[in-house]
C-alpha cells in the first residue's frame, strides 16, 4: 500500500477509535456516578443539587448526556475541572506545556542514552559493559518510577541540596514573559541565561526519573536487535567489501537494528505519559499528570475524561508516526498488511 493511502486510512480510523474510547470511558464514569459532585458543596440541599444538574444537563438520560458532552468537546468545551476550579480547556494548555517539556526532556535523554547504551552493549556482547547494561535494563523494568524519584529526591535534594523541586524558581519565572509555556523556550526567547539555567536545573531530576525506565526499555531492545543484526550475513558482506568496523556498525548493523527499536521508542510515548503522573507528583511538577492524579483522587470526571482522551490521541498518533518511520527505515515493510 502507498504510504499516503495508509496514513489517510489510519487518520480516518483515528476518530472512530477515539469515539470508541470516549464511549467506554464516558459510560464507565457515568455508570459509577454523576459528575455533579464537582459542582457541589456538601451542605447543598437536594433542590439545589437538582438546579445544578439542570444547568449542566446532568438530569437527562445517559445517551443525551453523551451527545451534550460530545458537542461540547467539538466546540472545545471539555467541562469544568473541580480540581483546578476552572474550565478544563482553560487549564489544559499550561499543564500540557509543562508535561510536554518534561516528557521531551526525558525522551531525549532516554532515546539518546538508550540507543547509545544498547549499541555499546550489543557490540561488546558478553563483556562487562554488556552485563552492566543488562542489569540496568532489567532493573529499569523493575524499578518503581515513583520510588526511584523519591530516592533521587532523598539523596540529591533533601540531603545534598544539589537540585530543586518544582518547575522553576518563582521570582525568576515571574521576571520573564512566557509566550510558549515551555519554560526553557521562554527563557531563550527572553534571552535570560539565569532563567534558562533555572528551567534546566529544575528539569534534571524529573527527566532522569522519567527517562530511566525508558532508557532501560530502549537499551534492551537496541542491544538484542543489534546482536541479531550483527550475526546477519550482510554485516560480514560489508566487512568483506573492506568497510571499516565503524561504518559496518553505523551504516549497516545499527541502522537495521533501529527498525525494531523504533517500535519500542513509540511505545515509550505511552510509558512516558504514564510515568509522568508519578514523576510529576514526586517532583511537584505542575503538569497534566499531577492534575490527573488530583482529579482521580478528588473524583473530577471532566478532567479524567479529557486526560484519557488526550493520551489516547497521543498514543494513536505516536503509533502512526512510528509506523511511518518504520516504513521509511525498512523498505521491505508493506504497511497495512
Amino acid at each position, binding site marked *: 500500500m502507498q504510504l499516503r493511502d495508509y496514513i489517510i486510512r489510519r487518520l480516518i480510523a483515528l476518530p472512530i477509535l477515539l469515539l470508541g474510547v470516549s464511549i467506554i470511558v464516558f459510560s464507565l464514569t457515568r455508570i459509577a456516578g454523576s459528575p455533579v459532585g464537582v459542582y457541589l*458543596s456538601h451542605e447543598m*440541599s437536594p433542590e*439545589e443539587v437538582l438546579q445544578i444538574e439542570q444547568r449542566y444537563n446532568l438530569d437527562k438520560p445517559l445517551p443525551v448526556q453523551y451527545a451534550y458532552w460530545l458537542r461540547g468537546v467539538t466546540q472545545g468545551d471539555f467541562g469544568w475541572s473541580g480540581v483546578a476550579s476552572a474550565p478544563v480547556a482553560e487549564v489544559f494548555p499550561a499543564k500540557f506545556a509543562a508535561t510536554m517539556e518534561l516528557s521531551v526532556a526525558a525522551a531525549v535523554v532516554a532515546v539518546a542514552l538508550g540507543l547509545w547504551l544498547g549499541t555499546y552493549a550489543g557490540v561488546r556482547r558478553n563483556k562487562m559493559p554488556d552485563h552492566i547494561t543488562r542489569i540496568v535494563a532489567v532493573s529499569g523494568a523493575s524499578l518503581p518510577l515513583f520510588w526511584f524519584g523519591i530516592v533521587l529526591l532523598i539523596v540529591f535534594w533533601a540531603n545534598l541540596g544539589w537540585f*530543586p523541586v518544582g518547575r522553576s524558581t518563582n521570582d525568576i519565572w*515571574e521576571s520573564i514573559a512566557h509566550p510558549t509555556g515551555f519554560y526553557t523556550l521562554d527563557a531563550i526567547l527572553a534571552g535570560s541565561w539565569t532563567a534558562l539555567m533555572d528551567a534546566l536545573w529544575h528539569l534534571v531530576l524529573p527527566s532522569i526519573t522519567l527517562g530511566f525506565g525508558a532508557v532501560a526499555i530502549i537499551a534492551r531492545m537496541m542491544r538484542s536487535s543489534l546482536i541479531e543484526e550483527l550475526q546477519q550475513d550482510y554485516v560480514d558482506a560489508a566487512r568483506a567489501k573492506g568497510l571499516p568496523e565503524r561504518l559496518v556498525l553505523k551504516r549497516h548493523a545499527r541502522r537495521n537494528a533501529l527498525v525494531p527499536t523504533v517500535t519500542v521508542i513509540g511505545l515509550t510515548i505511552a510509558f512516558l505519559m504514564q510515568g509522568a503522573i508519578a514523576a510529576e507528583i514526586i517532583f511537584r511538577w505542575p503538569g497534566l499528570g499531577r492534575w490527573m492524579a488530583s482529579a482521580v*483522587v478528588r473524583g473530577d470526571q471532566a478532567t479524567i475524561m479529557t486526560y484519557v482522551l488526550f493520551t489516547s490521541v497521543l498514543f494513536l498518533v505516536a503509533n502512526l508516526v512510528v509506523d511511518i518511520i518504520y516504513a521509511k527505515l525498512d523498505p521491505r515493510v508493506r504497511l497495512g498488511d
Partner: protein
Amino acid sequence: MSKGETHDSARWAAALAAGLMLAVPATAQNARDTIVHGADEEPATLDPAQVEPGAGGEAVIFHVYDRLLAVGPGSAELLPSLATQVPTRDNGLISEDGLTYTFPLREGVTFHDGTAFTADDVKFSWDRVMEMDLPESASDILSDKVAETRVVDDYTFEVTLNEVDASFLYSSVLPMTASIVSQDAVEANGGVVAGEPNEYMSDTPVGTGPYRLTTWNRTENLTLEVNDDYWGDMAFDHVRWEFGLDPDVRVLGLRAGEFDTVETDPSYVADLEGAEGVIIYSEGLLLEPLHIGFNLNIPEGALPEGDTIPLDFFHDVRIRKAFNYAFDYNAFINGALAGFGQVNPHYVPIGVFGYDPDAPIYDTQDLAEAERLFREAGVWDEGFTVSVVVESGSLFEIQCLILKDSIESLNPNFRINVAGVAEAVFDEALSQNPVEYAMWAKNGDPAADPSAYLETYSHPDGEWGEVHGFANGYADPEAVGALIDAIAEELDPTVRAGMIAEAQQVLYDDPMWLIGAQEGAVTAYRDWINGMVIQPLWPRPSMNFALYDKAQ
C-alpha cells in the same frame, strides 16, 4: 525612614540575582514589595453572588470588596466598615421590635472603577444576591432573614427582618456574600438574571476594598495591587497568589523562601518545624469542629455491603455515648494535629459566645466506660461492622482511622470500615437526603454565633437534625428543639449564656456527634513578614494581607 532603602536594596539584590537589569522604581514611596502567597484553592469565581462558602474565591473577595461591617484581629467584636456605626439597640440603629436595622454609610468612598459608593449600591448588591439565588452561593443567608431592603438616603441603608435574630449581623452582614459591588459595573456588564451566573463579575471584581485585582492567570496566579485610593488604612504590599499547589508543595516552597505565606494545617507542622526562617504561628482555634456524624435516618438497604448494624443502631444513646468514650482524643490532638487542638462541647465551639469552659465534654478516652455502654446496649457479644464515609487523603480520614483503631481495640467483633472516597463523591453523598451511610466525618462550618451551630448541628428540625433524624434519638426531641429555638431569640446575653450552658449539658448527655477536636488555627510564614494575625472569622483565618508588611 529607612524602610524605603531596605526595599530598594532588596530589589537590587533580587534583580541582580535574576541576572536582569530591570529598571528599579526610583521613588521610595512606590517601593512596594509583593507578598507571594501559596494558596490552597484557586477561586472558581470572584462574584459574591456565586461564591461558595469556604471556597478559595472568598479569600480574594475579602480583600477586594468591603462589607458593611468587619471584624478585626484579636476579638470577635464587630467594627464599622462601609457602615460608619455598628447597629445596636443602644445606639438606636436596631429598632425596638428588633426587626429593622439601619446602617449609616461612609461618604467619599469610591469603587475601583472610580464610581462613587452610595446606599443604592448596597441595596443593589443585596437584592442581586437574593434575586440571582444561585444554588452554589449562600444567598439563603440573606433571603431567609431579610424581608425588605431600603435606601433611606444616599448614605443610609435599612433592612427589615422576617423575625428577631440575634445573629443577623454576624451571619448575614459579615459573610462574603454580603460584599458590596458596584451597581454601575454590573449593569453595564450583563445585569442581573435570576438563576444564571454573571460571567463578567466572576473574574472582574469591582469593589471598594484595600486591594484591586490586576491579573488572574487561571491555574497559575492572581495578583492584587494595593488600592491607593482606599478609604481606610492603606495596605503595605502587593500580593500575588500562587495556585495549583498541593499542600506539600506549599510547605516546600515556604521552606525554600519562594512563598512568604502559605495555607497549611497542623498536620504539616512536623514538616516545617526547625526550618530556617520559617515561623509557625498559632493563635486560638478554628471555628470548624472536626466531627463524625451519626445517621439516625438510615434508608432501607442503602448501607454499604458488609455493614451489619441495624438501621436504628444510633437511635440508642448508649451507643452514641460509647463511641464518644471510645475515641482516642489524645492520639488525634497530640498525634495528627501536633498538639494544635482542643475538644469543644456539643455543639458550641470554643471562642463562640456562650461557650462554657466548665461544660462537660468528652475529651479523654475511657474504654471501660465505652465497654460498659456497649454491653448495656447489647451489642458487645454480637459485635458490629459499620462504615464511615470520608474524603480520602484528608485530615478527616485520619480521624476515622483513629476511631477505627479505638473501636476495634475494644472488641475483635467490632469493625469500622473507613470508606475513603473522592471529594466530589463525598460531597454528592452528603447532599443526598437521607444520607446513605451510617457515619461520616467532616468539619463544621464556621460561624460567629452559637445559634448557627446549635440550629445546624443539634436542632432536631435543623439542617442535619432533619436529614439524620435526630428526633429518633433524643430522649426528648421537643425539649431540645425548644431550648435551641429559645437561644436564637433570646437577646439578653446573660440569660442566653445560661441557656447555652444548659444546652451543652443536655447535648453531652445525649450526643449526636463525635467531636474529635477543634483544630488549632495555625499558619506558617517567612520571618520577614511582619504583623501576622489570625482571626477565625475571616475566610482564611491568617489572611488579611492589608495588615502585613514584607520587610525582606
